[in-house]
């Protein structure tokens, strides 16, 4: 077993385990931080698959994102500390079944599809970063720009929705 296999397995397991913890813990802050560590483990998984830029970016982006998640969890949950051990789920059986079926189907696809020849080596990290930059600002520029504009629109829209409706309706 190569080191790469080991690390992929290890970080994959960690990511899944933290993912499960998200829905198992009663404390909402723990839940948000479990999601953070799940995503961080994925970042490490990317690193062990030699996708250096993506891995580091994932580790960086998710930390801020999930920290913000944590504060919203505390705001919007009935029992953020989880001391009441209340159950906040519904249609549990259906969800479990759906989750399991999705998992099984995806695994089946992974196992039974012929993925074709496997490439041995990836380009080194500096080359990858360079290629990605060229790709982003060359062929995929339109998609990249669209994504940028979309995120800006989403930011503005979200802010507008979230702002208090001061005198907006009142003036009609």
């Amino acid at each position, binding site marked *: 077993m190569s080191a790469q296999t080991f690390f992929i397995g290890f970080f994959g397991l960690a990511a899944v385990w933290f993912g499960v913890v998200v829905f198992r813990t009663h404390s909402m802050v723990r839940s948000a931080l479990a999601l953070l560590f799940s995503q961080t483990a994925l970042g490490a998984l990317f690193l062990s698959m030699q996708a250096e830029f993506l891995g580091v970016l994932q580790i960086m982006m998710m930390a801020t994102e999930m920290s*913000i998640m944590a504060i919203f969890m505390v705001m*919007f949950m009935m029992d953020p500390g989880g001391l009441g051990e209340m159950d906040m789920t519904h249609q549990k059986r259906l969800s479990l079944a759906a989750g399991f079926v999705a998992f099984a189907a995806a695994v089946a696809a992974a196992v039974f599809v012929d993925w074709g020849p496997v490439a041995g080596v990836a380009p080194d990290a500096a080359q990858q970063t360079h290629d990605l930059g060229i790709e982003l600002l060359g062929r995929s520029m339109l998609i990249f720009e669209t994504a940028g504009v979309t995120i800006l629109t989403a930011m503005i829209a979200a802010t507008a929705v979230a702002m208090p409706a001061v005198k907006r309706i009142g003036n009609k």
Partner: protein
Amino acid sequence: MNVELLLALVTGAALFGVGIYGALSQTNLVMIMMGVELILAAAMVNLVAFWRYLHPDAAAAQMFVLIVMTVMAIEMAVGFGVAIARFRARGSVEMEEAAELKG
């Protein structure tokens, strides 16, 4: 069949399953968003794995992952915007109480 590719894909599948379970079973909007984040994360794992083991020379695959990250951020922004607005109006982001959203 490459072991590493399989491991990565199974990881993706497991995250996908957990995410589906979370998105369906949780009653709170924020928790549902967490489920969706996991589903998107699963997609990212698969994309990276395909890039690494099938097309390591295609930079477009990496760009695709960046797009998924953007989608995650957008989902967060819009989700929280809606959550704040609902919380302000109704004092709750529980889905059981969002009858009027069903349309």
